[in-house]
């Protein structure tokens, strides 16, 4: 039955994460932006509270613990994930992205790692000290075209030697491990790609610099360098078996693409949370400071009406993508739709809210920060244009047209 009511579990996680966002994240948002850093003692505190950004856990859901005899409970991990993420990003997206946990590195390990690798890499996120995972695909000359990566992986005895550079890597410098995509033979194109888990401290693996950004300043964005970096065999994600099993199929590339189907709804949910934060902040000011009739009131009504509508539209697209993932249905089109729309509408909502705030919005107010933060949500995890490409490919799939 079509329904937009939250289950008890969904409601609980929404309320819990909202409480955390309101009381722990939002109060440090502006200061963290100014410092361009989330305070270490704060990270230590929330880590001890067990708060992690672990997107891979969202793909788990309730059914994994169900016994065969019991009626299978519907998975809702992805829906819970987008609900929770929207609330956290509402508090502050840069702080949220800085939370300890596997982050965007989680989904590829979860979906393609061997049982041993899952245990080894995903079990490190404990309460004793904050740890991070990261995901490194983008290179200076390969962003949207992920199949064109240049980082090489040369097979040697006992493992691979990596050489290359990665950019725009969220939490890349502080991460305990990074999922790195590299090619064993660039002439094979996608089929030559492999995913490796490179651990911090590995010889030849370093962070060359941290990027200075328009927004999300409190969150670390790293450039990583691999110079004759030896990665042992057991860190090849999925093991050799995964690639032998798939023959000539582009499985390394598939690992990267498959990741997007679960992370794009999460990223969309973040953009929605940001847009909602800007909208609610502005609505409050309009309620208190604006005249109750006349031209300004009319303008505010139309702008806020449209902002709220667009937020709702983005949320429903995101929920649909997450719902499909929970049911095990293919969701690449829906994941692209929600990401494309949420990323674009996030910026639009923030800009319109700034219009309502006028010049005073420039001076130490949350919305201008959110405006700077949200722009990248229309870029990373696939630009808006790439999302359109994905949607179009799915739209034309019945006609065998390759867009």
């Amino acid at each position, binding site marked *: 039955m079509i329904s937009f009511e939250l289950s008890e579990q969904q409601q609980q996680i929404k309320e819990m994460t909202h409480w955390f966002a309101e009381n722990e994240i939002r109060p440090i948002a502006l200061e963290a932006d100014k410092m361009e850093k989330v305070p270490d003692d704060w990270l230590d505190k929330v880590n001890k509270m067990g708060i992690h950004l672990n997107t891979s856990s969202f793909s788990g859901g309730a059914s994994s613990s169900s016994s065969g005899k019991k009626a299978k409970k519907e998975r809702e991990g992805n829906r819970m994930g987008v609900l929770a993420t929207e609330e956290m990003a509402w508090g502050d997206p840069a702080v949220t992205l800085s939370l300890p946990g596997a982050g965007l590195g989680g989904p590829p390990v979860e979906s393609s790692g061997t049982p041993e690798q899952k245990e080894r890499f995903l079990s490190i996120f404990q309460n004793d000290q904050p740890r991070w995972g990261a995901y490194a695909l983008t290179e200076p000359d390969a962003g949207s075209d992920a199949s064109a990566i240049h980082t090489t992986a040369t097979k040697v005895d006992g493992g691979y030697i990596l050489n290359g550079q990665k950019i725009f890597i969220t939490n890349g410098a502080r991460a305990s491990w990074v999922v790195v995509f590299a090619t064993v033979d660039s002439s094979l194109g996608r089929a030559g790609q492999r995913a490796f888990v490179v651990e911090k401290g590995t010889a030849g693996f370093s962070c060359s610099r941290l990027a200075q950004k328009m927004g999300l300043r409190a969150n670390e964005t790293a450039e990583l360098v691999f110079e004759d970096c030896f990665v042992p065999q057991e860190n090849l994600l999925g093991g050799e078996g995964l690639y032998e099993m798939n023959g000539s199929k582009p499985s390394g590339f598939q690992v990267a693409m498959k990741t997007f189907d679960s992370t794009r709804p999460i990223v969309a949910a973040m953009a929605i949370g940001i847009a909602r934060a800007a909208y609610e902040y502005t609505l409050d000011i309009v309620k208190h400071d604006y005249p109750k009739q006349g031209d300004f009131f*009319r303008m505010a*009504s139309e702008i*806020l009406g*449209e902002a709220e509508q667009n937020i709702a*539209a983005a949320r429903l697209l995101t929920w649909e993508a997450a719902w499909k993932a929970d049911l095990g249905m293919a969701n690449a089109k829906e994941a692209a739709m929600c990401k494309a729309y949420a990323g674009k509408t996030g910026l639009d909502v923030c800009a319109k809210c700034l219009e309502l705030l006028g010049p005073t919005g420039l001076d130490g107010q949350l919305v201008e920060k959110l405006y700077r933060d949200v722009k990248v949500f229309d870029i990373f995890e696939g630009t808006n244009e790439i999302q*359109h490409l994905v949607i*179009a490919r799915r*739209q034309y799939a019945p006609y065998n047209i390759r*867009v």
Partner: protein
Amino acid sequence: MISFQPTEDEISFIKVAKDFAKNRIRPLARACEKRRAVDKTLDDEAAELGFLSLELPESWEGLELSSITQVQLMQALSYGDLDIIQGFQGAGDAASLFRLLPDIPILKNNKEDLAGGATTALLDLGNGVEGPGKQLNIHRRQDGYILQGLSHPVRMAPSADYAMIAGDDSHGKSVILWLDNSADWTIQQGDYRLGLLASGLGRLSFERVKVPATHVLAEGEAADDILREARTRIRILQAAKETGLMEAALDYATEYTAERKAFGREIAAFQGVSFRVASMALETRIANHLVLEAAAGMDNQEPAAERLSLRAMHRAHRSLRYVTDSAVQLLGGHGFVQDFPAEKWMRDAQAQVMLYGRENDLLARSGDHLIAGEKEVTVT
């Protein structure tokens, strides 16, 4: 639990509706437009299948379906042709008022006729449809009301057996009136060329028509409450019809661009084309979801249901114009000629959005709710 999965019953009923839309409605679209009326046989078939009594109350032998089910059916039917759907005889938009007022004696006494195929024209003078040039007035008298003037264009005007008039009277109070004698009005035929030509567009003209107290369905706050809910229901159902047309235009444009070749390849292979199709798909999906959420809100009697309906209608209007215009654009010159359906869909779409509320007004009213808080917004 958040879910986008229709029930088994809905899936079955939607399949019947979609088959009817594709196999019966679509092929007759041009002919009905040319005749400026829906084919009688088609009308009878729709009634036989139950599609004309979805909103009517069970006590009137209607199906009294939930909004969430109805919107899915309306979408499926309108996939065939919106013009024909809007031209089906029967209760039309007034069905929502019959559903809310099933026991009013003057209606109840005629329920067999009203639910059995008689046509009712609804003249809603409020709801943001009437503009500054309003020409029909409701004058309050001690023993009833007097109607004077000319209505705005409404659907099913020439064939109307009954008329329901809703709006503010000369004292600014809401009122809903019932006319059961078609001799009370005359039809001004007009000159309609844009779209929805089979839907029976016309104006009703009233020359000092007395409406006795027995024919007053509701007044004052009671009328406000009924109109608020009825308009909410109507908006949601009309927005659902718009999503059906959007889906039709999207599918047609996708298929056309997948087959049409230029510069030696299918034009879908060019991103200028395929990205526009992707945007059409996105807008269609968004409008659909907002309609579904509004319908769910209506069924659950949520306080925000009225705002959700304003929101859904606004987005449906905007998306409908974009998607149908895009279909014409992607067909190029073929989109402009009547050998292909795209030009008709674009015309019908524009006529539809003109009949059911101005976009900026819908948006501003939705915003009013947000600023004031749901309960503080007065009925409009």
